[in-house]
């Protein structure tokens, strides 16, 4: 009968929230926003790869340079024989984006080179062009010193460092510090958001019951502990529902968004680049496309494990904090009074969040990272941040065990404060008072 009542409470807490407009809007809008971001990131990184291409007219007045600037994907050089003054006049109508003027200068002292255009050339373009000119001059000098074109080609080599992690069996796994960091950030932020968002919902729910004065009616039917537990579990289910819907919807929408943002040609190009990226032999492609690299190592990260561990630490961390939030909610009459109690509860969460994203991502195996991922106040976030870099199983298990023990303690402590607090009206509460409540006999 008593579990039955708890179920009824869970059902109400769950249904009343899931049916709310704000929940539906957030559930639908969340993935759209995430997908938009994701789509934009992909869009811009592809734009970065293909780039906007600039047509540059080259006016070469330098007789010593016989080498020609080589066009690349983003910068196309065309040599024109008109004098520079004529080109300047016809810059609007000529169809060129920029004019590159190379005056007469000795090879070891290149001076007076100008990049002219209607718009001032951006930093990246001028950088690229000057790289190209440097390369051209170097080639010119090398040729003058007697090297042939084939020798020049042989001199060229691109370098890409691939970071690999050696697993327990001794085989090396593809991994990327970039990918791990991104996943660590995303997981850490999500964990922080979910614990905050839903923990505060528990507090609001308790305060709502107090201010609407239904609490005493409820308490004459059910035990305070059942009510608190029902609320916490009901809201946890709302959080899980939202999380699952977000994942499903995000995948669906981002697939669609990527299709809209990225044309077929671009898609082919990225898949091509990605395919190249997965084979070690073409480092140039990987260098051009960090996303391909990241996606490659994402495939190697154990996504299933990350999701399962995320769910565990979300539930654990949420239970740990929401019980404290419930106790705070029970001790005050309205939300404005929560400030003094919120601080000490929020601080460890913020601290965990800030330290996890700075210290832990920099040194995921260090002792600070270890302790942050053990202490239940910070472990949900810190452990999620550490996980993509690899965490020994015993540490994971220990951290989980401590978290479970931690939330059993906070739920127990909170329930003792809660059962007294919910029946107190119009009294300013402080910590001393709460300690006193804790010692009350039921």
């Amino acid at each position, binding site marked *: *009968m*008593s579990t039955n*009542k708890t179920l*009824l*409470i869970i059902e*109400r807490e769950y249904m*009343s929230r899931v049916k*709310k407009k704000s929940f539906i809007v957030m559930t639908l809008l969340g993935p759209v926003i995430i997908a938009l971001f994701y789509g934009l990131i992909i869009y811009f990184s592809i734009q970065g790869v293909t780039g906007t291409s600039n047509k540059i007219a080259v006016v070469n007045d330098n007789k010593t340079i016989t080498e020609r600037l080589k066009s690349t994907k983003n910068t196309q050089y065309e040599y024109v024989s008109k004098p520079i003054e004529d080109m300047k006049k016809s810059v609007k109508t000529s169809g060129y984006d920029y004019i590159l003027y190379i005056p007469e200068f000795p090879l070891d002292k290149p001076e007076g080179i100008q990049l002219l255009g209607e718009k001032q050339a951006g930093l990246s373009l001028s950088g690229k062009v000057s790289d190209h000119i440097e390369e051209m001059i170097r080639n010119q000098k090398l040729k003058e010193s007697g090297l042939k074109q084939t020798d020049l080609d042989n001199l060229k080599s691109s370098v890409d460092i691939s970071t690999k992690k050696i697993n327990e069996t001794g085989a090396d796994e593809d991994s990327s510090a970039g990918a791990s960091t991104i996943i660590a950030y995303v997981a850490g932020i999500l964990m922080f958001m979910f614990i905050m968002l839903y923990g505060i919902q528990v507090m609001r729910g308790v305060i*709502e*019951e107090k*201010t*609407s*004065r*239904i*609490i*005493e*009616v*409820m*308490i*004459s*039917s*059910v035990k305070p502990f059942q009510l608190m537990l029902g609320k916490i579990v009901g809201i946890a289910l709302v959080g899980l529902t939202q999380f699952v819907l977000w994942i499903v919807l995000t995948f669906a929408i981002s697939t669609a968004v990527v299709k809209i943002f990225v044309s077929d040609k671009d898609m082919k190009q990225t898949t091509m680049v990605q395919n190249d990226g997965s084979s070690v032999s073409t480092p140039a492609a990987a260098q051009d496309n960090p996303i391909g690299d990241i996606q490659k190592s994402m495939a190697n990260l154990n996504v299933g494990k990350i999701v399962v561990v995320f769910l565990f630490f979300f539930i654990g961390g949420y239970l740990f904090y929401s019980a404290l939030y419930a106790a705070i909610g029970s001790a005050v009459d309205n939300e404005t009074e929560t400030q003094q109690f919120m601080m000490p509860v929020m601080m460890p969460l913020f601290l965990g969040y800030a330290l996890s994203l700075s210290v832990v991502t920099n040194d995921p195996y260090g002792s600070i990272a270890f302790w942050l991922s053990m202490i239940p106040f910070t472990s949900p976030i810190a452990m999620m941040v550490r996980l993509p870099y690899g965490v020994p199983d015993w540490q994971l298990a220990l951290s989980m065990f401590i978290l479970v023990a931690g939330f059993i303690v906070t739920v127990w402590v909170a329930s003792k404060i809660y059962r007294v607090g919910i*029946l107190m*009206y119009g009294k300013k509460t402080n910590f001393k008072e709460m300690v*006193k409540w804790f010692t*009350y*006999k*039921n």
Partner: protein
Amino acid sequence: MLSVRNIVKQYASHRALDEVSLEVPEGKIFGLLGPNGAGKTSLIRIITQITGPDSGEVFFNGQRLNANHIAQIGYLPEERGLYKKMEIGEQVLYLAKLKGLSTPEATKRIKYWFEKLEMQDWWNKKVEDLSKGMQQKVQFVATVLHQPELIILDEPFSGFDPVNADIIKNEILELNKKGATFIFSTHRMESVEELCDHIALIHHSKKILDGSVGDIKSTYRSNTYWVEYEGQYNLNQGDPIFAVLDTQQLGNTTRIKIQLRPGQTANQVLIALLPHVSIQRLDEVIPTMNDIFIDKVKNVN
């Protein structure tokens, strides 16, 4: 049916209930009276098992109070409310199910009550769309829906307009006729006289008076009467039958308040007066519960 024995409840430095004992007879309306802060709510919270006593026991129908009795008690707290965002029907259904009713049974009873109190079209309304009086009707229905044997009402009429207060009063009497026992907690004495059969007076955490309303009133009778007459009668302080407490002249009518001397009756007064004056009225001055309440509280202080 409810027996409260030597209840003590201590809050840190403040003793809310000090050795309070009560007997609530079955099928009666029991008034729990006392000034604000006397300990009424603390006592009710113990009876409704919201809190436990530090010492003492409560028996419900001869059984020690336990969790199974929750379904047999209906409680309308003074600090009462409803979930603001929930629809009325859904909300009452939820509260009824928490008391152990099945969904179909609860739905049937809610429909019955909503029809009875003319609130059929409230089912899909939200609490925030209802007036305070309407909300109180909903709360009343939620309190009695599971047909509890014992219904505890804490300040039930505060905030009710006279029309709705009357409707609820009649429902209380009807339920009482059908056998429900009521505990009625209030500091407003006038509602007590109309409804209560028994009362207990709590003051400063202690019970200072209890018994049936009739008994209490008769012990507080002071043999005082109002007499109105026309004509002349020589009132002197040495009258062997009564002492005059107050005299008022209203046109030709004289109004006097008298107290009988020991051993005298109202008949003796009439015999003395009749030869001289024409009697228009003779009333015994019966103390109101309010008088008794104030008197008792003052004496204690």
